[in-house]
């Protein structure tokens, strides 16, 4: 491990200043469950300074504002897991965080870190995109709000500048007629990175006709996104078993249209279709 400077700002503006004017090659530290892993690998680690944001109180907590739920970036996965607000208004997010790592990782790892690290298997991202989440970034040059679905470029790359801090994640509460789910396939029952995952939200009217459908696969597409081609199949329909199977197949098709046939397609093609179907079934 190479030597580095360590800063521990107590306010957001102090942190923004440090990032804007301090060491240009610096790294924000939240729970550290990604950063510390990287640091050990000297060949992949070049940062010269750490800006530890964990002592900035305004970056913690879960709240609501009208029809919106607001999650501050330092909120840990465990806190999300125990939040009544999330349970009521975004249960799929709770399911997703319950599958992250182990209790120790959930106690340290944060929602902000999960998003900003931008790994293809980040488990909070598919549900947050399905929730139509937006995020707020802040720097000395001001604040900007971006739809989460527009935020990622490719794995480990986002549109955020290095001097920007994620200060807020927010999404509209799910409507009362919405059902949601998160399905994750890993290789073991804990400490398991998603091999594939799917977040789904389905709203129906009283007659059982789908009025809104959102499907977001994880670890499948080159970047996260909803799959409108599959969502459209459902809207205006009363879902039958066959329809859900078809929805799954559509996602699989779209996936291949993006990734092409690769060495892992033989497995992913049928299995993503199954997971989508299961996620949709769980919304029934």
């Amino acid at each position: 491990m190479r030597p580095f400077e360590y800063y521990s700002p107590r306010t957001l503006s102090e942190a923004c200043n440090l990032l804007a004017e301090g060491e240009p090659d610096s790294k924000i530290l939240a729970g550290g469950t990604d950063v510390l892993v990287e640091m050990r690998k000297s060949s992949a680690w070049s940062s010269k300074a750490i800006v530890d944001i964990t002592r900035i109180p305004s970056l913690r907590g879960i709240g609501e504002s009208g029809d919106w739920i607001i999650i501050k970036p330092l909120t840990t996965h465990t806190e999300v897991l125990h939040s009544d607000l999330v349970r009521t208004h975004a249960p799929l997010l709770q399911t997703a965080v319950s599958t992250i790592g182990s209790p120790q990782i959930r106690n340290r790892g944060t929602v902000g870190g999960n998003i900003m690290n931008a790994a293809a298997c980040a488990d909070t991202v598919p549900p947050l995109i399905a929730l139509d989440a937006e995020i707020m970034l802040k720097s000395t040059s001001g604040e900007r709000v971006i739809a989460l679905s527009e935020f990622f470029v490719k794995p480990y790359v986002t549109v955020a500048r290095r001097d920007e801090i994620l200060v807020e994640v927010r999404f509209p509460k799910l409507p009362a007629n919405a059902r949601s789910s998160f399905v994750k396939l890993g290789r073991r029952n804990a400490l398991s990175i998603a091999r594939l995952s799917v977040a789904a939200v389905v709203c129906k009217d009283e007659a059982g006709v789908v009025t809104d459908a959102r499907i977001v696969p994880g670890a499948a597409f080159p970047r996260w996104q909803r799959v409108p081609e599959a969502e459209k199949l459902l809207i205006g329909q009363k879902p039958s078993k066959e329809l859900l199977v078809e929805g799954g197949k559509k996602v699989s098709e779209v996936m291949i249209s993006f990734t092409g046939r690769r060495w892992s397609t033989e497995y992913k093609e049928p299995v993503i279709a199954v997971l989508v179907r299961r996620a949709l079934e769980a919304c029934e």
Partner: protein
Amino acid sequence: MVGKHKIIGKPERRVDAWGKVTGKAKYAEDYTVGHQLWGKVLRSKYPHAKILSIDTSKASELLGVEAVLTAREIPGSNVFGIVVKNQQILADERVRFLGDGVALVAAKSKEIADHALALIDVQYELLPVVSDPEEALRPGAPLIHGDTNEFVHHKVRKGDVAKGFAEADFTIERKFKTQFVEHAYIEPEAVLAEPAEQGGVKITGSVQNLFSSRRSVAEALGISLNRVQIIQSTLGGSFGGKDEVMTSMCCRAALLAGRTGKPVKMVNTREESMLESYKRHPYVLYYKWGAKKDGTITAMEIRVVADGGAYASMSPFVTWRSVVQATGPYYCENVKTDVYAAYTNNNYTGAMRGFGSPQVDFAIESMMDELAEAVGVTPLEIRMKNGFEGGAVTATGQKLAHTVSLKEVLSKAAQELGFEEKWRRYRDAKAVAKRRGVGLACSYRGVSLGAEGVDAAQTTVSVQTDGSVIVSSGVTDMGQGAQTQMAQITAEVLGISVDRIQFLNTNTSGVADSGPTVASRGTVMGGLAAKNAAEKVRATLLEVGSELTGTPVDALDLADNYLVNERTNERLASFGELTAACFNKGRPMIGLGWHKAPRTSWHEEEGKGDAYFTFVYGANAAEVEVDTETGRVNVIDFVSVHDVGKAINRAMVTGQMCGGVAMGLGYGLLEEFEIEAGIPKQLNFDEYLIPTSMDVPRIKTVIVENEDPAGPFGAKSVGEPTNELAAPAIVNAIYNATGKRVYEIPANLERVFLGHKLTRHDKRGSEQKNAFDAVMVESCKVRGGSE
């Protein structure tokens, strides 16, 4: 001494428990002394290359660097190896796998040492790489040592297979494959080497087989054995894994200590450990059985190729156990088994819990289920039909003279799980996405080293004047509980409570060379030596007791920390009073215990012999749920039954059984150390997946006790047999659930779903260019990657 045991068989608290749970136990890395330097190894950049030159001048000039060593500066022998001496402490002319060491640095800090490594300039000329053992045996393959890569060919011959196949109604011919497996001990390799006051060196470390490591250190330094002292620190696991890799670390640290005159500490990171350490052998197994319609097996023809990796290590012994056990505990008059080991540019392979049995057991037990299906009986029925009974003659021609409890363990395992009923029900269940299945596997296993080599051990019992006792042994404790087991045996013989015993960690200068602590021989060998030692002390104590009380010796006993009159149960003196009297009379209160194993024999050319002095029997039954739409397997119930002869400590036996199953589950479902063109892909536990507590089901353990005179109080082995059956039981259960058989383990998502492994076809791994850096960078990028 007759009648009920007071301590044997009880779940006595482990003698090492207190230190471990309070954090007082000192593991190798916890040893720190003044002026200590840090030693680091520069490893190869390529899996196979000629070393053209090594320039250490820049590294030597770095402030804080106290020594830089290459093969040239080794005063004694650079080569070591227990069976074949072909492993080097530092590669001199050639590197043969990515874990080979090329140069050593000792510096004032780890960071300086790391920096110095980067300043060493090594020029290589690349050589062609061979990474597949079957390819390695073909003509024209790159040669790793000498003029052939085939360095082992063991045979077993019995009857006439041609005749056997002619008698058969049908044959079953299958190919199986197993993978490299990492031991995954929680404590990576570590040692502290200190120049000793009277010359020589003192090493404290996480070493499994102290005596073989000591021999190599002495030879490397060019000094006699008595000047090298190796003391075992509390071990954070080994599973067979801290042998050669620790020998080379001991040698390296000792060389650096010798050169600098200062203590040198070396500690591997997890990545270094995974890169350098040896693994369990991958096998390719070709099984051909001939059978009659009633399920009688008329012939078995078996050919196995083991990947030995870059060095011989324990391969000759590991594969010998495979050849002896390759037919399983089943009657067959005509057997032809050939087991080969080949050198490749992969991690070398050596001892790991199971030692050549997990691979063959996977094949045998899969074959057994196929045979059952072919003749239309249940897996239990086919095993009951073909399984050994008392007096059976094995494939190697050995007549089994002990209690052969195969059918007892099998039926217990089946009964505990409700196997027969479930097996039928699941087989006939309708095809839903998530399906249940049950599977069975059993084995017999030779105890201790067998005809592999010299088999003897020492334990010393030293009674103090206050009635406390010190025990030390050449058999080492790696967490498996050897010390507790020997303490219990000592306490039983001396009629004292276990808390009076202090157990010393093994010190090569304090006990006689007792061979390696491997092959599940700790209890049989160390335990009998402890019994022998304690009996000697007991005899002295009783004599003194007789002199003291006027009671004849044969009326005396030692019980509950007292000298007692055996007939009246009267307490005549406390154990402490007795030992004080013994001291005052100038009588020896130390017992030197020795045990040499009974005779075994082996005829390498004829492929026959009395391979082991006794055997143990075990059976496992697994219940799984298979998600047939994703290939995901969950083990939901498990039964493990082992005949251990006698459980010296029931809690520890149960611990071994559960741990063995957990490890076997990883072997069957998850674990795979992948090497492509000599380049390993997983160097840490983010990618090398072992089971978590959430993956291990309830395990019902059944201890069967058919006491065997070959072991102390009838005890035999438990460590390794518990680890060899989970994988085949699980794979058989998957078949019961899905009707599809997995012929290659681990049965991971892709193999279960697709029936084969997914392999990446891109360049990674196939190019040698700076393979070492590539693997280090890749291993951090891939975590969380999108493949």
